[in-house]
């Protein structure tokens, strides 16, 4: 029996869904395993049957999305918060640090057309079963979730820092040896330390790791010369409204 999967997009950039298309070589064997019951990005097929796995990309930022996420929850065995927007609110949540009217007026001429609420993670409205972190999630972690559901075991996802991946790759440390503002020590792993491996600081796009110590990280960033405003921006960028970062992002 193939796993019946649905792919939904809320407020986000579609980048997470693109990661699935980018699986390329793995797509044929993957399609032996899953049935695409709903995926507007690739098929005009309407959503009819209940799902084994619902992948929901994006944050909830309209009243219609609130209704929809509740409907998806009701009709899915496993609900996957697919990517950072669905888990933490991610980049759309930057506008939670201004008033709703300020955000609307910055972008739109006629705000009376806008039906928008503050973006939030989907767990604000429904219970989720699996969080698949990343902006976007790494292809291997997407496959791991599907395989884990098929095998009926817990997915083997990393919840520790990006530093672990850097050290396993024997990377030159950007933070301690070059005093560059790397978010690795507080950021969830899973990307394989892509940025530091290419001599770029970790921006924190996988959200806070388990037990992230944002307070120490913010003191370290200040110590290497970042202004308090810049420190704030670092924490706001991907997960400013999470419990872990709220204080440092405010």
């Amino acid at each position, binding site marked *: 029996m193939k796993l019946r999967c649905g792919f939904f997009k809320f407020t986000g950039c579609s980048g997470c869904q693109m990661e699935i298309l980018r699986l390329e070589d793995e797509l044929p064997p993957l399609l032996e395993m899953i049935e695409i019951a709903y995926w507007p990005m690739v098929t005009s097929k309407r959503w009819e049957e209940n799902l084994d796995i619902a992948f929901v990309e994006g944050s909830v930022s309209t009243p219609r999305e609130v209704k929809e996420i509740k409907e998806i929850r009701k009709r899915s065995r496993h609900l996957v918060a697919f990517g950072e927007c669905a888990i933490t609110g991610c980049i759309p949540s930057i506008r939670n640090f201004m008033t709703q009217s300020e955000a609307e007026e910055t972008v739109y001429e006629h705000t009376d057309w806008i039906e928008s609420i503050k973006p939030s993670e989907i767990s604000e409205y429904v219970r989720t079963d699996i969080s698949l972190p990343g902006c976007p999630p790494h292809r291997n972690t997407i496959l791991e979730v599907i395989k884990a559901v098929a095998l009926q075991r817990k997915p083997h996802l990393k919840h520790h*820092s990006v530093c672990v991946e850097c050290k396993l790759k024997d990377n030159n440390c950007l933070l301690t040896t070059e005093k560059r503002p790397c978010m690795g020590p507080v950021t969830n792993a899973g990307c394989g330390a892509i940025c530091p491996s290419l001599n770029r600081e970790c921006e924190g796009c996988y959200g806070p790791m388990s037990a992230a110590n944002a307070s120490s990280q913010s003191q370290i960033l200040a110590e290497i010369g970042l202004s308090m405003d810049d420190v704030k921006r670092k924490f706001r960028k991907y997960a400013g409204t999470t419990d872990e970062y709220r204080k440092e992002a405010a």
Partner: protein
Amino acid sequence: MKPAKKLMKEELGQFVDHLSKEYLVYGPVARRSDFSFQEIDSAEDLRFDYTTTTIPPKKFFHHRQTLLRYSGEDYSELESTLEKRFLLLGVHSCDLNAILRHDRLFTRQFHDPYYLKLRRNSAIVALICTHIGNSCFCASLGTGPTIREGFDLLLTDLGNEYLIEVGSSEGQRMIEELNLQKANSSDLEKKEERVKLALTQFVKSMKMDGLNQLALKYLDHEVWSLIGEKGGLAGCFACLSCGNCSLVCPTCYCFEVADIPELSLNQGVRIRELDSCQLLEYAEVALGGNFRRDRKARVRQWMTCKFGGAGGGFDSSCVGCGRCINACPSHIDITEVAKSLRGE
């Protein structure tokens, strides 16, 4: 012991080329802002003036390995794909001591075939360390900078030449075909002078004696909440639980094992990779229970292990390489923790 020899510095390239015939040679090279053990193509890349590398030589023996391939109920152990033996060139005393500790650790009650396979496939040309880093404290632990055992060859930089001492029959074979000058007693004296000079360069020290007992006795000592929660021990910030200290530690050996199935689900590989007691998930058990949920408990565990008070005993204890101090973004310093526990 075979008589010591001398290698002129301009002959180093020849020496490396000679070793490369039989071995894959790895040695310290400079990167943007640190040193790392990398495959050596040319002796010019070698940096024998290195203080320490970010990752210790354990990366060659115990980092991330595929253990076996499974298919349905069957499995097969993967054969090593290494065609040549490999040689670590320029290993310092701290790292050599760490390797010797792991040799004991992985042959205690159980012999670890994965570690031993790699270890038996390796040779070591050690180097007396004369460039002491600001975080180094091997001298106070008796793990350097002199080296007495565990090497095939031992090099000492005497200025214009390297003194070569032989530590094994394999080491003897490495230099047999080379027409090297014999070293005389004044060369050996020069070596002692170099070591003496190195000893004057140490900034840090740690008194190891009894620390394992102290750490276990003072489980509620203030130092644990300073490094684990508040910060403030010698100017440190609170621990990040990032795991850097244990990953760069040459004696930390804890690992996790995971199966990675292919999409067919009935076949795949089993891997193991380094884990860290600093990570929240490390002590997690079924249904979300966790023996070390507090950051303080995790950092205390690591320090206690480095003081010889955990399961690995002295085989996983500190060798004074200073890497954890360099790698800690919060500036937590194990030598300061030791002082604090001693009430100094």
